[in-house]
């Protein structure tokens, strides 16, 4: 009996990402923290759709017994993963350009708005 352990694990991942965002100053590490939060949210969405004793929602060679897992959270998690990849690429591009212009990745030293 595992109870609500999967939800708790997802929330621990989100909390680790929050901790990274609060404490770290390197821009690459901030991107890693946002990625951790995304992973936690994606895992949470998929685990919300689980049905006890369920099989994958695919009819090819499906086992005859057991209910199917809810397919809509999986489809929307696919959308979420692709959007996460896109935003991560944009953030990394900004980090590269900031390092090229300022010579540092410290978030405290690049607070000025001068170009």
């Amino acid at each position: 009996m595992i109870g609500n352990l999967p939800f708790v694990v997802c929330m621990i991942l989100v909390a680790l990402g929050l901790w990274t965002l609060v404490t770290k100053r390197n821009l690459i590490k901030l991107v890693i923290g946002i990625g951790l939060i995304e992973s936690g949210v994606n895992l949470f969405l998929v685990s919300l759709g689980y049905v006890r004793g369920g099989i994958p929602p695919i009819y090819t060679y499906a086992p005859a017994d057991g209910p199917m897992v809810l397919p809509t959270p999986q489809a929307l998690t696919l959308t979420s993963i692709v959007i996460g990849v896109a935003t991560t690429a944009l953030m990394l591009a900004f980090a590269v350009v900031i390092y090229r212009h300022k010579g540092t990745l410290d978030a405290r030293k690049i607070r000025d708005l001068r170009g």
Partner: protein
Amino acid sequence: MTVVVRTITRILFPISLVFGGYVIMHGHLTPGGGFQGGAVAASGLAMVLVAFGAKRLAEKKGLLSALESLGGVAFAALGFLGLGLTFFANILARSGGLFGGPVPYGPNPGELNTAGTLPLMNWAVGFKVLAGLGAVVLLFALFGGENDR
């Protein structure tokens, strides 16, 4: 990179492309689909980029962005194909033509010639994701790579 990495890349690059194509092609039958298969093929592209340097692929940038635009336009056009009923209506399913084969109800072994516009949309989105991720990785490599061979 060294000759070991180059040789392994020469072997693994076609395999990754074929596996990506397989995942895209069977997207309506097995786990997978356009996004996943495109990501697999783009990982093969990134491997080539690491092994052989970005300079050799620099002129392929226009081809990649053209392929991405083509995939997006094809996806939207396939959505407009069902405009007689509604947007994104699947008019090819069970029509007997292209990808219009019948499918038995319940668990079945899976027939490739089914599901109407879904395989075509899988191919469009697969090309789009392959070209998009490849273009992003190529741009990153080209921006920082002044001193690679």
